[in-house]
């Protein structure tokens, strides 16, 4: 089966700074929930942004579903950034209209149902919502799409534990088994039970790519423990 994401010698340097991604090569299969795990500055967000088409690589290649990054890949990729990207002056229903207009795979009924469960008034302006509610609205918009690849950048950072549970349950409830979710986070213990596989990334390179169950079975460790062990070695 063709992988959903292929990176070949992918390199990204910002201005004249250090390499954010350094000759990264990997393939991600379809139909899995994959954790993109690594310390701060390891290149997680850069990889997600390159896949979403928000950055251009310095060199190397990246393809989604066998296609170069462009309008066609953006139609099948649903991206949740770590910041609010909705216009503060837009109303929630205007955001729904926007997504309905531009994304053929947007399930408006599902989005409205999720917002109803969150008690978010659709006539409310984004700027009147709390930070947590704004993030939930963004998550609803992203997960209401029937995309082939979901890119979630730190979806549970900066929110309370109850909200984290809600976000993770929303992700699982709306997840299509034929789609792939690539989820980056520091909070490994919160998400490891939902992961099929994981990528450890450090200094712009993939240092480990395996199934989450393999860590538990072969090493008798949780993913969180394994992460601490691997990156403690690097820290030393």
């Amino acid at each position, binding site marked *: 089966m063709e992988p959903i994401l292929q990176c070949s010698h992918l390199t990204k340097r910002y201005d004249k700074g250090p390499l954010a991604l350094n000759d990264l090569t990997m393939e991600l299969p379809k139909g899995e929930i994959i954790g993109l795990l690594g310390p701060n500055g390891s290149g997680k967000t850069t990889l997600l942004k390159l896949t979403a088409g928000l950055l251009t690589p310095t060199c190397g290649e990246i393809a989604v579903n066998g296609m170069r990054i462009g309008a066609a890949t953006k139609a099948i990729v649903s991206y949740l950034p770590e910041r609010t*990207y909705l216009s503060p002056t837009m109303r929630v229903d205007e955001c729904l209209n926007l997504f309905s207009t531009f994304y053929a795979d947007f399930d408006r009924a599902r989005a409205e149902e999720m917002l109803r469960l969150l008690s978010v008034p659709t006539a409310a302006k984004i700027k009147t919502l709390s930070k947590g509610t704004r993030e939930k609205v963004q998550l609803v918009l992203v997960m209401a799409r029937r995309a082939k690849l979901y890119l979630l950048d730190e979806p549970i950072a900066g929110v309370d534990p109850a909200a984290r549970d809600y976000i993770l349950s929303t992700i699982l409830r709306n997840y299509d088994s034929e789609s792939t979710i690539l989820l980056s986070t520091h909070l490994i213990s919160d998400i490891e039970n939902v992961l099929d596989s994981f990528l450890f990334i450090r200094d712009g390179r993939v240092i480990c790519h395996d199934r989450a169950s393999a860590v538990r079975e072969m090493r008798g460790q949780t993913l969180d423990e394994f992460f601490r062990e691997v990156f403690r070695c690097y820290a030393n």
Partner: protein
Amino acid sequence: MLRKLIVQDLKNQRRTYLMLLLLSVGCAIVSSVCLVIEGLLSSDASSALSAMGLGLVMGLALLSAFLSPVAIVFSVAVYYYRKMVTDEAYLTFTLPATAKQTLNAKMISGSIWMIVAAATIILNTAIIAIPNVLVHSSDGYTFGMLLKDIADSFLLYYSSVPTMIVGNIAWLLSNLATLLSQLALIYLCITCGGILASKHKVLAGVGLYFGSQTVVGAIMETVVLAFNFEYLVGSYEGATILYYFINALLYSGLTVACHQINKHLLQNKLNLA
């Protein structure tokens, strides 16, 4: 997709801009009424206070009538900056559209608003001027006579009606091309500031705009002055028409160049931090 992007951009901006346009036309009407009242009052009837009050209202209304369309031009630039450089750009560039479509939509929607703003200034001028000309002119002077006088004034510069029509078309094209070139240049400078500057993106964009304006203005004037139009064409009116057409051509070229460079930067250098 381009049509959807254009409609979305127009929808996003219409609330604010329509309000500004209505405000500006309203202020032009107030200003015109104040001028008419001031003209109709006899010197015995008008006191210093009422004249001052009237003058103040008229001044404010006059300013608003012309500043509101200018505010629209400024807002068009700010809208482009928000949608292409700030966090909102994450949404813009994850829509299933190419950079070319996104930029074309911004250019088309921005041009529409700039042309509407320019037309509003002309309309406001007419709203203020026409009633006052009629009030202050001799008895029996009608609106039809005013229109005829305006038409005759154009013929002072042209030898015939067809030449006058061609001349005015040339003038219109020249100003339209200048307007669109300014928009394309503003967009390009904002993109350059956003992509090439790691800090102070707004300042970088503003600085680039004023710098490039100076250079572009000097080049355009040099090129235009290099042509001795009257010698080439043999008449003043012919020279005027030729000047306008060449101006239109040069500024159209500038518009296309800025647009193409902008498209190249967005396609190949996009780096949303």
